[in-house]
């Protein structure tokens, strides 16, 4: 997917004027955001579990080579295959080859952000293989030819009526806006696709070194039908998904659903280990795991390593004032919200995404709610520094900051300059007490007046008060 992140400002402005989008986004506060608070309150150990979840991921990230080797050995023991991919192109080619060797015409997919990251669907279609998304939200956006707008709810930007319109056009049935019937329609259509598919592709929330297992977490049960019905199952996962043991998985699972949707546990957590065993009546004959690097080894040991702890719960976006106003599509690539503002520059380059680390008020709520305590504002700040270093900041801002920096490093001069400026502005604005417009301050005055200074600066007043203290 071509990033369009540089258009963040204009897309955000359009989003604010889109009543459907604003209605759809409004539900997040009363739904997932509130749900997380309630779920955390019901579990007294929640904060301690977050600490442990962070430590588990940190430990795994410090020993990824060993855990990946251990994981691979267990997958092979269980009769599966492991494929290593350095970048998106290699991963796409590997998956295409697996599909072709299975003679696949259609593949079903359960939600995978990694598949989005590598642009798998477009690639498979170009190769004559039809990918069918089975997660209801992913199915909806696939029909609309849109990228996901949220990690957990890819179609969260749409209202019920928009889905009703889409299904009327696509399913050729009389229009209904009853959610139960809409879900039923998708269920019926997709049921046939599951049964026809030659290959099932799933992502993985966790890979377990102890057992060689891949774990999926869903509410719909689509991952189970995707991997359970076709004769070939492909897991696509990035390197940092590997963790030591099932015990570690349980700790992470306890914070995952609660942080994401406020559920105590998602409806389906499935631990898959190898292909079908002797005597099994169902399950795939082949079990493939594609391990994707795509720049992650470069993040290890860098100041962005903490980002690799992310377990894709979406809490950072559910609690971000910017995301809740602008929606996911304004971010212009696969990953959105605060986590996307850190990850997208990593994948597409800061020159194509420097708007994103700036699309934040740095209020810090994302870090407050992150189940693995990723310091998201700090990581965005690193990108802002990088942006400045590479001269990607507009020259007006650079010169403005340069001028300010010159004075800030010379306190006496700074005080003199502010004293003069306050004096001049105070005299100019004395009559009305405020300014309706001022040069260089349109950003403020376009929607409100600027109060005129009263004459003396803070430092002047401070000094005076210190002097008059007994």
């Amino acid at each position, binding site marked *: 997917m071509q990033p369009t992140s540089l258009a963040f400002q204009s897309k955000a402005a359009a989003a604010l004027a889109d009543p459907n989008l604003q209605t759809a986004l409004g539900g997040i506060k009363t739904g997932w955001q509130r749900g997380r608070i309630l779920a955390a309150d019901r579990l007294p150990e929640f904060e301690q579990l977050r600490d442990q979840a962070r430590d588990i991921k940190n430990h795994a990230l410090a020993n990824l080579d060993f855990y990946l080797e251990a994981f691979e050995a267990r997958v092979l023991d269980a009769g599966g295959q492991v494929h290593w991919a350095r970048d998106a192109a*290699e991963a796409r080619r590997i998956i295409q080859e697996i599909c072709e060797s299975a003679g696949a015409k259609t593949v079903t997919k359960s939600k995978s952000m990694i598949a989005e990251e590598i642009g798998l669907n477009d690639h498979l279609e170009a190769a004559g293989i039809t990918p069918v998304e089975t997660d209801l939200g992913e199915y909806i956006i696939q029909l609309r030819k849109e990228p996901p707008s949220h990690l957990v709810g890819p179609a969260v930007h749409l209202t019920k009526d928009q889905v009703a319109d889409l299904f009327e056009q696509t399913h050729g049935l009389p229009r209904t806006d009853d959610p139960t019937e809409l879900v039923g329609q998708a269920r019926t259509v997709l049921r046939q696709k599951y049964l026809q598919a030659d290959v099932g592709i799933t992502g993985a929330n966790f890979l377990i*070194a102890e057992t060689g297992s891949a774990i999926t977490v869903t509410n719909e049960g689509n991952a189970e039908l995707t991997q359970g019905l076709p004769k070939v199952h492909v897991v696509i996962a990035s390197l940092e998904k590997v963790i030591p043991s099932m015990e570690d998985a349980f700790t992470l699972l306890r914070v995952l659903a609660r942080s994401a949707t406020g559920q105590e546990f998602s409806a389906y957590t499935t631990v898959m280990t190898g292909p079908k065993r002797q005597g099994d009546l169902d399950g795939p004959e082949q079990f493939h795991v594609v391990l994707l690097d795509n720049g992650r080894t470069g993040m290890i040991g860098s100041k962005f390593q903490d980002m690799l702890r992310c377990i894709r719960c979406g809490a950072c976006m559910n609690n971000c004032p910017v995301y809740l106003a602008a929606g996911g599509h304004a971010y212009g690539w696969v990953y959105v919200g605060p986590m996307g503002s850190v990850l997208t520059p990593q994948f597409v380059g800061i020159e194509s995404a420097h708007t994103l680390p700036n699309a934040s008020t740095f209020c810090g709520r994302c870090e407050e709610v992150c189940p693995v305590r990723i310091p998201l504002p700090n990581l965005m700040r690193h990108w802002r520094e990088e942006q400045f270093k590479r001269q990607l900041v507009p020259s007006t801002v650079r010169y403005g900051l340069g001028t300010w920096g010159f004075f800030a490093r010379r306190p006496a001069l700074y005080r003199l300059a502010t004293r003069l400026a306050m004096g001049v502005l105070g005299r100019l604005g004395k009559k009305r007490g405020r300014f309706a417009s001022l040069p260089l301050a349109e950003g403020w005055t376009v929607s409100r007046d600027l109060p005129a200074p009263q004459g003396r600066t803070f430092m002047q007043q401070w000094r005076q008060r210190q002097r008059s203290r007994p």
Partner: protein
Amino acid sequence: MSDNEGRRAAILGRLRDVYRRSPEDEAAAIATVERRVFHPAPNLIPARGQLDLEDRIELFTTMARNVQAEVERVARMADVPAAASAILRRHNLPQKLVIAPDPVLQAAGFASQPLLRVRFGDADEHDQAGLTLAFAGVAETGTLMLCSAAERPTLLAFLPENSLVVLPSARVFGAYEQAWRELRRELGSPPRSVNFITGPSRTGDIAQRLELGAHGPRRLAILLVDDLQAG
């Protein structure tokens, strides 16, 4: 060296270049990794599920009902056929059931329900109701744990719109870790598929409104059975 081996070596090599461990650090890292992989120990287990068996069963029941599962408790395995038939009747479903070919379920005496037509095997797309046997239950979130096996096919709990699951009362554990320890003790390594199931299938993908039965079962009925020990 095959393509795959080359890519593998490149990725692992990149990681080792970053870690640059001294020989002592490397030995220590390997020891830690081996301990955590071969002798995993539980992290913090929430107090919520750490109760006596009867209280665990009660917590399990409450939590499962909170997520729209139906829970019934019967004294004997021999009561299961009548209970299953009653569930189908209550929901106006045909008296037809596909059942996992597990010896425990086969010995339940379904012949006692002459109106109930049963088949032992895996589910297909035409089956409206399936019955299988759970390996364990987890009280902390009202979660079922199903282990795949030749006599317990996975799709039984996913393809039919109505899923019935027998759970031995004695196998309701407090926490996931305790159920998994039992799996390790009995099976050694995990079977192909272990399904943790918490309520029926659901989605919030249309305007964040909760709808049941997205792809998996619309209805989940759990039958707690008191005279069963084995899983």
